[in-house]
């Protein structure tokens, strides 16, 4: 029997119990969308980290009572420091002006009788090693006339650690739900086998190979897995779309232009392939178990 004909027969059979088939596909889709959703978040977090962690910087805030020769002195020390690549200086007046423009708090700031913001040096170090950056930060903290030193890549490193944790979680979740998918298919096929016991028995009596018996069930398992994968893909695509439209407002407020990247083509294909394979595998286990049990009787 040609493969196309088997596939059609399998689809006809799936359509004889449309609700059951639909529910199965939905369950598989939702189960798969959990790890895939987490994967999308991790990928996006990773993109964020590599965007920011690539250029670590230190912010050096001067004391409010520092005078202009203090600033000149600090600038000179920084420029001569071997670990410093280059520096930027943001004066108190500049900082206040920027705040007035960006925050929309113009009225409030206009009502202040003095500028509360300090002069700031932004230091770009030569190396990116976390340990050395911390040493550098501690060294700056001992300098006079500096009120506060902040290592700006610290949150990126925390995010990186969080991402490592999420990746582990992703792996666990994916493994568990893959097992669930195999189990769902196994059970569906087991029930199908029970209703088609006679057909299997007769087929074997008239010379069907185990491969012939297995084939329609394997097709069914793969198809169900594939459709489940497609459902998961739809869930993720819709969710990213919905989240992005609310993220758009959020990122306009933060002026960051950040949005969730959708699944890539390769990732989508991998998802569908994996889902189909798990369905196939569940079906294979189920039929093999049945054939083995029959043979031993």
């Amino acid at each position, binding site marked *: *029997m*040609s493969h196309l*004909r088997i596939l059609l027969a399998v689809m006809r059979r799936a359509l004889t119990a449309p609700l059951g088939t639909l529910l199965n596909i939905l369950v598989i889709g939702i189960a798969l969308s959990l790890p895939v959703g987490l994967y999308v978040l991790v990928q996006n977090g990773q993109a964020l980290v590599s965007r920011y962690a690539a250029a670590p910087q230190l912010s050096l805030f001067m004391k409010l009572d520092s005078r202009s020769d203090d600033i000149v002195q600090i600038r000179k020390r920084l420029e001569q420091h071997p670990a410093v690549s280059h520096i930027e200086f943001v004066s108190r007046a500049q900082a206040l002006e920027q705040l007035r423009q960006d925050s929309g708090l113009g009225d409030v700031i206009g009502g202040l009788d003095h500028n509360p913001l300090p002069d700031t040096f932004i230091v770009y170090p030569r190396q990116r090693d976390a340990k050395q950056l911390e040493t550098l930060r501690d060294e700056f903290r001992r300098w006079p006339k500096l009120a506060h030193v902040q290592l700006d890549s610290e949150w990126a490193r925390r995010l990186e650690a969080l991402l490592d944790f999420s990746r582990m979680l992703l792996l666990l979740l994916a493994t568990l739900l893959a097992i669930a998918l195999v189990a769902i298919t196994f059970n569906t096929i087991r029930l199908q086998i029970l209703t088609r016991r*006679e*057909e299997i*028995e*007769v*087929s*074997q*009596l*008239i*010379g*069907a*190979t185990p491969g*012939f018996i297995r084939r329609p069930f394997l097709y069914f398992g793969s198809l169900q897995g594939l459709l489940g994968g497609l459902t998961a893909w739809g869930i993720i695509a819709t969710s990213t779309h919905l989240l992005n439209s609310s993220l758009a407002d959020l990122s306009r407020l933060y002026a960051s232009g950040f949005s969730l990247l959708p699944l890539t083509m390769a990732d989508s294909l991998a998802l569908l392939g994996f889902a189909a394979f798990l369905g196939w595998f569940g079906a294979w286990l189920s039929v093999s178990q049945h054939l083995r049990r029959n*043979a031993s009787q």
Partner: protein
Amino acid sequence: MIRFDHVSKRYPGGYEALHDVSFEVAEGEMVFLTGHSGAGKSTLLKLIAAIERPNGGSVLVNGQNVGALRSAAIPFLRRNIGLIFQDHKLLFDRSALDNVLLPLQICGFGHRDSLQRARAALDKVGLLAREKVRPVALSGGEQQRLCIARAIVNRPAILLADEPTGNLDADYAAAIMDIFDSFHQVGTTLLIATHDEAGVRRFGKRSLALAQGRMLA
């Protein structure tokens, strides 16, 4: 074609269905296997199709030792044997035509070719007009003939029939025996188990008699 050498078969629990059975059926021969129910006729047929394996002796079919066959080779042995079951073993979820198509699908025939062969087989047993009917709507005799059509559709060299006329009245039984005779005419090897000894005598073919698992001389 079929040869038993000192074959015995014990079922789990100790019941000995066959004891030291030896006989031979030549190629193209039509042989009856007689005996009361429980004499071991069904077991003997099952040994030929490797549905059961012997505990002692050897079963040779077409030169192959069936008892020692690898399980992967059994489907290919069975494709060369047409089985006609006492309980028909028809599939009630599909039409008569689809029942007859099954062996051809298993052997991998193309769809068009399969349809042609299946209709020819149905025609042979006089069921061509009823190809769309499901087996449940067929009479006992028609079900038996459908079972025959399925057994012969891929033209096996050997036909094994277990009580093919068991539950039929004389007219139907005679019609089925005529069908068997027509296969005999074209060279098929037939082994037909029956308890209807009168019918066997009428045919005048060789018969093997089993009683309590032993072959009577």
